[in-house]
């Protein structure tokens, strides 16, 4: 009985405790249900969003970059199909073997081989790894033919920027290159692998216009990132095409003409519209190198080259204008009331205290008036003018013609030059102005610095009757005032009496078209196409008293770096001016001997290519003359 009693006790205990456990289970199950309610009802929206985030991947579709064409629609920067061969690990049976096989079909370096092996092992099995870029058509077809032996090897097509004109267009177009850390703006498009942005020239200036807007593709992906399907797609906006004012053929011609010299720049401009027909700087470099990615070695070579191929000398080269600056002095003198018939005797130098200021002609020009002084570039006559006018009025005139400030041309890297005044010297050098410096400025030396572009603009304003024409490289997508084609009339008049301008124009006409002019030998003989000009030879060294006494060393006998710069400014046709041209040949020697013939050839070519021009005489259309 005791046992049975005990058993009952045991059974009661069991029942009690079993029910306790059952109750515990019920409580714990309730917490599960509560948790389910919390996750699936209360927090459901948040988790739904997270699930969508997981599932949907937005992929950017880079837009095709806008083309750049010249004024006649000739393409200068285009997008080319870039064929690349990629390897997908999960489709290849044996990667090493496949690569070996591929190496027999196309050239593969040991470096490529190692890189692919490394990337393949690091990336997910379905992610294509680029084996080689920029395949030519022959290589593509060889891979296609051997496709059955190359499992996992595919050809992909991308777009790459290509510049059909090589270095002759570089300084205008610039180039595109891979995005660097500093370029990142938060725009996700910039972070796309292989994306290129404009780094120089027009490509940089109009990067936003050319780039366009990216499209998006909504993709459903799995946890490994593999694309399951495309859910929706929104195409982007392709970049806008850009029409330049450049005439590609003229630019090529100009560049070729400059390349004969070691380092030179030239600008051709429509004096009425401001259209830049050619803007050349030699030497240049191959822009395509930057797109593909250039080696350190090539880069260092470009940077260290004394001829500065990376600099656009047409807009960023600072040169003493030399006597091409004299028209500014003449205009300032005329405005100051000095008559063009004012005569002055040139003995070959001018004495100013202890200092003697020489004329370029040792024996002197004798008595000259303003026309003759311009024609023969008499320095002493201009010394005298400057003494009478003063530096500030000279410089004020130069500034009205656009010197000493940037033109606001649509290219990066434009430099302003220097037109000195008393105030400027005090502020920048900290010393008061000296009269001797006024004389030196009158012949475009000393502190005066200009760019070839500024000289071209100055010439254009001289030739178009004193209208403040502004240069431009694009006709579209610029400012509002430039969308309609403004003629010179659209530009404000600078308020210079035409009688004054005529004095300078006549002087410049005499320079080239009078037997005694400094550039007579470089004149244009074709009737109706004649040019007017002004030579300039600017010293880059100081000629000592001793040297002058012994006879000035000839340029040919000097090392290149110490030779004079040769300059020439000109416009044509002389009767009804249309084009202005400025040429500078670095350390080229004499302006009349070196720069003027180049300007002549360029202006002949420019007029020959003018669609509104009917050839005046039969001989035109042949090879441009290379005399001089």
């Amino acid at each position, binding site marked *: 009985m005791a*046992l*049975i009693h*005990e*058993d009952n*006790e*045991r*059974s009661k*205990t*069991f*029942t009690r*405790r*079993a*029910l306790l*456990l*059952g109750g515990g*289970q*019920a409580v*714990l*199950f309730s*917490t*599960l*249900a509560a*948790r*389910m*309610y919390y*996750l*699936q*009802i209360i*927090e*459901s929206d*948040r*988790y*739904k969003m*997270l*699930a969508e985030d*997981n*599932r949907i991947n937005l992929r950017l579709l880079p837009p095709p970059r806008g083309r750049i064409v010249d004024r006649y629609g000739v393409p200068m920067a285009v997008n080319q199909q870039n064929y690349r061969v990629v390897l997908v690990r999960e489709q290849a049976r044996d990667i090493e073997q496949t690569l070996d096989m591929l190496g027999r079909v196309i050239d593969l370096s040991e470096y490529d081989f190692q890189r692919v092996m490394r990337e393949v092992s690091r990336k997910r099995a379905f992610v294509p790894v680029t084996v080689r870029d920029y395949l030519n058509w022959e290589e593509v077809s060889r891979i296609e033919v051997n496709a059955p032996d190359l499992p996992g090897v595919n050809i992909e097509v991308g777009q790459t920027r290509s510049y059909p004109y090589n270095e002759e267009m570089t300084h205008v177009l610039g180039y595109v290159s891979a995005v660097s850390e500093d370029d990142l703006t938060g725009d996700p498009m910039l972070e796309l692998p292989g994306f290129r942005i404009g780094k120089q020239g027009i490509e940089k200036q109009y990067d936003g216009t050319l780039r366009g807007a990216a499209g998006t593709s909504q993709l*459903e*992906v*799995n*946890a*490994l990132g593999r694309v*399951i399907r495309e859910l929706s797609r929104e195409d982007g906006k392709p970049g806008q095409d850009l029409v330049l004012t450049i005439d590609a053929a003229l630019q090529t011609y100009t560049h070729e003409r400059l390349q004969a010299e070691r380092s030179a720049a030239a600008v051709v401009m429509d004096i009425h519209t401001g259209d830049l027909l050619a803007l050349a700087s030699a030497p240049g470099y191959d822009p395509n190198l930057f797109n593909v990615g250039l080696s350190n070695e090539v880069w260092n070579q470009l940077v260290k080259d004394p001829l500065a191929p990376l600099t656009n000398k047409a807009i960023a080269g600072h040169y003493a204008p030399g006597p091409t600056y004299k028209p500014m002095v003449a205009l300032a003198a005329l405005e100051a009331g000095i008559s063009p018939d004012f005569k002055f005797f040139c003995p070959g130098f001018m004495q100013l205290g202890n200092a003697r200021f020489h004329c370029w002609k040792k024996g002197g020009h004798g008595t000259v008036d303003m026309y003759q002084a311009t024609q023969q570039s008499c320095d002493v006559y201009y010394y005298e003018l400057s003494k009478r006018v003063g530096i500030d009025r000279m410089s004020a005139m130069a500034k009205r013609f656009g010197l000493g400030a940037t033109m606001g041309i649509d290219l990066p890297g434009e430099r302003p030059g220097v037109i000195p005044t008393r105030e400027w010297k005090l502020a920048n050098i900290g010393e008061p102005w000296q009269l001797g410096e006024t004389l030196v400025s009158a012949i475009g030396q000393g502190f005066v610095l200009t760019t070839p572009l500024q000289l071209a603009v100055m010439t254009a304003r001289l030739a178009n009757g004193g209208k403040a024409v502004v240069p431009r490289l694009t006709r579209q997508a610029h400012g509002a005032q430039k969308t309609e084609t403004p003629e010179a009339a659209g530009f404000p008049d600078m308020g210079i009496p035409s009688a004054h301008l005529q004095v300078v124009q006549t002087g410049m006409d005499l320079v080239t078209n009078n037997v005694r002019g400094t550039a007579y030998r470089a004149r244009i003989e074709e009737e109706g196409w004649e040019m007017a000009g002004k030579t300039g030879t600017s010293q880059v060294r100081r000629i000592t008293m001793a040297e002058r006494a012994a006879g000035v060393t000839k340029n040919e006998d000097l090392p290149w770096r110490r030779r004079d710069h040769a300059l020439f400014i000109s416009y044509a046709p002389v009767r009804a001016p249309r084009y202005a041209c400025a040429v500078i040949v670095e350390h080229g020697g004499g302006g009349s001997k070196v720069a003027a013939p180049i300007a002549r050839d360029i202006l002949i070519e420019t007029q020959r290519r003018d669609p509104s021009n009917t050839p005046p005489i039969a001989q035109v259309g042949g090879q441009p003359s290379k005399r001089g």
Partner: protein
Amino acid sequence: MARRPQIFFVGRLAAMRNNEMSLREKVWQVNWSLIVLAMLISGIGIAMLYSAANGSFDPWASRQAVRFGAGVMLLLVVALIDIRIWFRYAYVIYVVALVLLVAVELFGVSGMGAQRWIDLKVLQLQPSEVMKVALVLALARCFHGMALEDISRPSSLILPIAITLAPVGLVLKQPDLGTAMMLLMGGAAVFFCAGVRLWKFVLVGVAALGAIPVAWQFLREYQRQRVLTFLNPEIDPLGAGYHTLQSKIALGSGGLFGKGFMQGSQSHLNFLPEKQTDFIFTMLAEEFGMIGGLTLLALYAILLTYGIAIALRARNQFGRVLAMGLTWNVFLYVFINIAMVMGLVPVVGVPLPLVSYGGTAMLTLMATIGLLISVYIHRDVRISRRGLGIEV
């Protein structure tokens, strides 16, 4: 004395019905509704496995169905075997399971960083799953022979404690902290039901807490790391932490009604790890929402209620303790698994009973239900201390 005829009547009936029951009588007694319940739960599992394979019976759903078929056979065999046989062979089964646990240590296949199964070709045997049942059997037999007074003597608890700690130690060595904890909790529940005083649990708990710093000194560095990662999965954010987060996202995004059968983006795009095994509940809750999750939870609740009812109706201590211990085991499976996928407890390798893909677990659970039914059929059988016989 007046109640004697009644006792006689009950006794006679019992003798007639249980001690010498014919097979036909037993089959008549089989708790078929319990089998239907198992079928419903497994059916949900097979449907989810079909979805997990993106609408294919291969590779999981078809095999799971075959295993369920085999499981039903096993269940019936286990259910019809006399409970006294189970009583007699309880220790033998326990020892066999223990040997298997040692064998897995020696010849086992590594998986998930631990040695867990033995490859038997037909199925990959996980001895630790078998042990969950064997331990309850052995403890039930152990406590069957003990009166409450025996139990109150600490010396009598030495054997059941040893029975419990031996497999726990072996499983810990695999190392599988999750299963070890489940064995420990399963054993503790049996101790509790058998009537061990509550203060003893408290004492052991306090002692265990005190022992932790001491035990810590004996652990190797990598073992400590493993324990730390287990206790705090955030240490390994791309591992366990990632799984929990993705699981919560899947569950939460299912909402009330779910995304629809085979429409779960988290599961089908592989954001959900182990969706055919440990995280199958998540998939169900993603595709059928809270409605689906609660339905399955309700089915389990009914199953557990059946188990407790069977335990309460059994008149022999062995059957009572066995049924309660097994029910508690099933509860632990369900609770830990679902709590884990909902981020309530750390990620441990515990399958969802009858639903998760896995052979040993399916067969073990069908055997568990078989034993429950056996306890039900033989609820009035008297079991002597030695086993067979009717003497008390």
